């Protein structure tokens, strides 16, 4: 097989799988709670800085995962308790609140670490052979983790009791409360799970990209494109959205250059908003 074709194919899979990881937290919060979390990119940023903190302390990279989860969980609980819980079922207000929140989080990080770039060293340098072609090991690992997390999450959501409760809450909160589901707590935990997934994405991507206070803005726009295309509320929708956006971006970029790739994504997003506003797979 043509070695360049192998690399391109892997790049496309990488693009789609990382996009899935990036959007996951947002999709949970938006799809299940109808909270449009514009600060989602900042949770990714917080995760990346948590990883940077761990590296700075000389801890092994794996420590970044529990540490980032810890920070994101505390932040998530605080934010849900003080801001978000008053705004369920008011999507537009959540948009404004989280927009302001994104500024606050950026400013706090800037206060501590400054505006400058931080660089994280690659925890698994070197490359592995895929069909006789070297491919960066860490990227390969990120792809595997992303694919595994889709499967685990899908099975869990379909099979577990909590998954069923969440579904009940989403479909009809009053009825859910009536049968003894503690909807307030469930919503809070769901929000926290969303912020934690954001921070995890940050930990995974930090060694691959630039780390600076504004990095979150890179992710938020594409994330919403994925939700527009895929539809909200299902893992299948999220996967297909990531597949379409990541695939178009990657394929068109490889064929015609970066500008065309970006143009392709915008075009797809506009077409979907216009002709299929509920996305490919919508829950209702």
């Amino acid at each position, binding site marked *: 097989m043509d070695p360049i074709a192998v690399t391109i194919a892997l790049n496309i899979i990488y693009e789609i799988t990382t996009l899935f990881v990036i959007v996951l937290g947002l999709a949970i919060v938006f799809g299940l709670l109808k909270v449009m979390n514009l600060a989602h990119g900042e949770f990714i940023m917080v995760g990346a800085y948590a990883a940077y903190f761990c590296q700075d302390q000389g801890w092994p990279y794996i420590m970044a995962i529990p540490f980032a989860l810890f920070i994101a969980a505390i932040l998530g609980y605080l934010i849900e308790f003080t801001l978000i819980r008053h705004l369920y079922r008011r999507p537009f207000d959540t948009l404004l609140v989280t927009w302001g929140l994104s500024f606050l989080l950026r400013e706090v990080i800037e206060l501590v670490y400054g*505006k400058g770039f931080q*660089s994280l060293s690659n925890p698994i340098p070197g490359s592995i052979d895929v069909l006789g072609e070297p491919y960066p090991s860490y*990227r390969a690992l990120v792809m595997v983790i992303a694919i595994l997390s889709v499967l685990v999450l899908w099975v869990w959501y379909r099979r577990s009791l909590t998954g069923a409760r969440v579904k009940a809450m989403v479909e009809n909160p009053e009825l859910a409360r009536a049968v003894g589901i503690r909807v307030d707590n469930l919503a809070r935990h769901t929000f926290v799970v969303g912020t934690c997934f954001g921070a995890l994405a940050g930990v995974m991507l930090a060694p691959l990209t630039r780390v600076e206070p504004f*990095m979150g803005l890179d992710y938020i726009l594409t994330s919403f494109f994925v939700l527009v295309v895929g539809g909200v509320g299902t893992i299948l929708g999220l996967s297909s959205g990531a597949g379409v956006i990541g695939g178009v971006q990657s394929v068109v970029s490889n064929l015609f250059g970066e500008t065309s790739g970006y143009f392709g994504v915008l075009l797809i997003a506009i077409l979907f908003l216009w002709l299929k506003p509920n996305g490919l797979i919508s829950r209702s």
Partner: protein
Amino acid sequence: MLNGKKTSRRTVLKATLGGAALAAAPGLIKYANAASDFKIGLFIPLSGPAALFGPSAKNCGELAIDEVNKSGGVLGRQAKLYIADAGVPPAEAAKSAVRLMLRDKVDLIVGNHDSAVRQAIVGAVKGKIPYVYSPVYEGGECSPNVFMLGETPQQQLMPAIDHFAKTKGVKSYYLIGNDYVWPRVTNKLAKKYIAAAGGNVVGEEYIPFGPANKFESAVTRIKSAKPDLVVITLVGGDNVNFNRTFAEFGLDKNISRVASLLEENTLMGVGAESSGNLYSSMAYFANIESAENKAFVSSYKAKFGAKAPVLNTLAESNYAGIIFGAALTNKTGSTNAAKLAATAEGLTVSTPTGAVTMRNRHTDKNMYLAKCNGTQFKIAKVFNKVPSGQTCT
């Protein structure tokens, strides 16, 4: 307004009066010492994508003012700084320039920003006061009463490409840059120098300026094109992401890279693991071993402390711009445009880069080719007194 229904006429009145008082206050203070100061308007990026350079640029501006005043000021007056944000859309910058001229009555403008903002400021100032444009740029500005201190593509790439061809046997080149005027003009000229050095261009591409770019596909194209040298005119975060992806795919071992805007902050983002065989060609690095630079760095550290924002070419250009503007005005004895232009030709001023000599309103200056060693620059080659290749009359 977001809280529209709560706004009463009284609060509007209060806010307006308060705002008016605030706006008037600096004016009142200003008129107290208006006659005595030589006012310098300084455009630096305080917001927007280049805001990272704001703090160091501001420090360098203040340091330059200190030194100008220590040596007697400008035209016998104390120099005073008026800072404006250059990280705004060009039309906003033009408004700031007008405000600086009409309200603050500045005598000189020094600016460090992109070319779109420069054109807007040139259009607003219309040559009425001298304007020193200090950062690296693509060349071609010849408007009256505008003086360029930054290095041009000819200075950055002509000697460097010749050096790579002769000492490293580089034959094939790949050009990658952001999609705006500076990279495109730079690469147009680079192709001339590559042809002159007997090399050929195996690929050229431009990445949109602004969106969240990824570089897997570009790096894959470079991998299949197999150039000897990649000439990079990406800036900021894109420069970081490109170089990290490039090294991650293992291309750094066999392919050298030379960047035209890789300074201390950007290299920090690229990181030690990704900076193998990476070079930067610029007129200033914070660790240049010249007497001028050592004095500059030590007074910067003395004034702002050891933890001050790291020095870089863009911030240094602000310092050099003010020093140059003051020297030019002092030597001319006035701010008359025709007299300034006459004095400027051939004027030599000492800056942290070394002595720079103005010719055709651009400067002949020393150029440095630095090799990245981890997250530090190591000067690999100095090209003395490189001409700008500009032909303004």
